[in-house]
């Protein structure tokens, strides 16, 4: 995976001084000047807490609560008790952790894939198609980013439980049918799609509109219609942006608590991992040692996703397309 990255990477050309650089480029240049040893030090400091938690998750309850995690160096006694407790259902009426893991997946998969797909279409249309009211529609979409999610919890709950109806002069018009979604994963992922889309469209539009016009014109002359240009040019060339937003949205949804609690909180067997995690430490937090293990269970997938998608962050994807 690193081989692919390096062969297609073009080194940045040296930039003539006196030309104002973008903020990103300036930051990049500053960072590039920091000695590697310093960077490793920062990496070490950054990872230390994670390491501590990982070690703690393998220590017995007594040990965790009385001594620091570093004592493993002198007194290496490790156990899987915490993990067993996390996965056990004994003494509780809640389903096991695997169930919550699957619940999380049921929310996060549609909530990540659907907005990326929709946003890519929308971004292409906003960037490269001409239609009436395009500018205002785009402004409207971007403005939606300013809507706080808390403001919409109650309206959405009503929408999911009763639908939306408009009564004019005795005639009732159903705008959104009563699908009885509250307490289902659909309620969560629909909400995440709605709140993810404006940002996704905005980010992807920035990227897609910066693709060189000439290759689209060349494709038009070669006989491609919008759909073919989208599928054969825009998607493959936008992979870095799609992957970046994918990771972003995945993490956001995976870690979400508010939306999940509001819409599925009443149905413990449908709840995602975050909700289970919050209850795991007990009513008064007396079982907090279990959180160490649970936390690692819940970050396993995001880590896997991150490493899987990172190879798509390829620079120089457009190399050789157009010159000048």
């Amino acid at each position, binding site marked *: 995976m690193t081989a692919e990255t390096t062969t297609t990477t073009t080194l940045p050309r040296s930039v003539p001084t006196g030309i104002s650089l973008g903020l990103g480029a300036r930051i990049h240049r500053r960072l590039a000047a920091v000695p590697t040893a310093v960077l490793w030090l920062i990496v070490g400091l950054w990872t230390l807490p994670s390491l501590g938690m990982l070690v703690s998750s393998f220590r017995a309850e007594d040990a965790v609560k009385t001594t620091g995690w570093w004592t493993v160096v002198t007194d290496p006694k490790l156990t899987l008790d915490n993990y067993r407790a996390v996965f056990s259902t004994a003494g509780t009426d809640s389903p096991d952790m695997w169930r919550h893991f699957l619940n999380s997946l049921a929310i996060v998969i549609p909530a990540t894939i659907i907005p990326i797909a929709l946003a890519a279409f929308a971004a292409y249309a906003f960037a490269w198609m001409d239609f009436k009211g395009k500018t205002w529609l785009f402004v409207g979409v971007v403005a939606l980013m300013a809507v706080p999610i808390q403001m919409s919890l109650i309206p959405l709950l009503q929408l999911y439980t009763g639908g939306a109806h408009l009564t004019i002069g005795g005639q009732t018009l159903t705008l959104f049918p009563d699908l009885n979604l509250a307490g289902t994963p659909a309620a969560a992922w629909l909400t995440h799609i709605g709140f993810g889309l404006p940002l996704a469209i905005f980010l992807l539009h920035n990227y897609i509109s910066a693709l060189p016009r000439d290759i689209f014109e060349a494709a038009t*002359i070669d006989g491609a219609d919008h759909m073919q240009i989208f599928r054969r040019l825009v998607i493959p060339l936008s992979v870095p942006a799609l992957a970046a937003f994918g990771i972003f949205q995945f993490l956001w949804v995976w870690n979400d608590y508010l939306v999940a609690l509001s819409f599925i909180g009443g149905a413990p067997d449908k709840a995602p991992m975050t909700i289970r995690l919050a209850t795991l430490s007990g009513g008064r937090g007396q079982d907090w040692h279990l959180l160490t293990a649970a936390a690692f269970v819940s970050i396993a997938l995001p880590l896997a996703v991150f490493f899987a998608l990172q190879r798509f962050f390829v620079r120089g994807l457009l190399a*050789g397309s157009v010159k000048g």
Partner: protein
Amino acid sequence: MAAVVLEQLNKIYPNSSHAIIDLDLDIIDGEFLVLVGPSGCGKSTALRMIAGLEDISSGVLRIGDRVVNDLAPKDRDIAMVFQNYALYPHMTVAQNIAFALKLAGRPKAEINERVQHAAQTLQLEPWLDRKPGQLSGGQRQRVAMGRAIVRDPAVFLMDEPLSNLDAKLRVQMRAVVARLQRDLKTTTVYVTHDQVEAMTMGDRVAVLRDGRLLQVDAPETLYERPADLFVAAFIGSPAMNLLDVGLEQNGDQLEAVLNAGRLIVPPAVLAARPGLLAYAGGRVVVGIRPEHLHDPAIGSDHGPARIRGVVELRESLGAVIDLHLRVHAKPAVTTETRQAAGDIELLERQAQVGESVVVATVDSRSKARVGETVELVVDTERAHFFDPETGQAIWD
């Protein structure tokens, strides 16, 4: 194969810039037509209208026997080569070339065969599996050509396809493209701002200025009989010397009066340009190409006309020498020469003091040195005359 006919074509951009004005052009089936003109004159706009990438504001465009004004690019049976190649960066060379055929749903075997053939024609076979990013500029340019020829369209449209290559490669590719077109006999419209490219490649050359067509003719005709001052100044390198002179009648002969002396208009020129008589007593612009000034010390058989000046610069090009002479004569200052001039202020200053710099391309054996005052032979038989107001060549 198809003729391309432009009738009263106009392009007005949404910002109301009028990029193409009443363009009439008859491009013959199988012809290599070059559209040439300075940057911003509307060449690309004209080409993109033919391609269907820009709407036609008014006028009629025919390709073959169809009016194509409202046809999508893909239905016009054209292929285009872009200035910056516009290759698909994530596809291999083979995929780039095959793209149009694949979209058209051709059978796989046929696609392979045609891609192979195009690659062979352009010597791209070793690179078929590379991506554009791994190719040199010249190779990318050939891929762009390959993408066009593989479709075997009725018309090739090329927008400055060689301008991103270095000088040497450009000269090579000039020959490659010209030969390819001769072999395929596909009607070609080729846009360039480089008059050398235009003169060497085109069957005919159309000179465009500010969205208007000035002249369309074979390269030799353009050189021998420029229709106006702009064409005269634009075609030829170094550019034609254009002097603002008085015209006086002396008996039955006409004389052009420079500050530096007089040039007699030869009877043959007067016979060819009877219109000159009407300018007697007035002013005209006389045009003398650098290659029609000679060192009197070399060769014989020179006419009597001379021009005298101080050598300011001597540029040896090997086979010939360009001499830059400061001459007491007023340079022609018109909208056309201003546009063609590199330094407008210098031109105006020279006009004020009545001095111009005349360039002469003389034999490499010339002994003229910088600082010397020299006298050069003027081949007045080949002089050009223009109306200083309208810029039109004076003939009848």
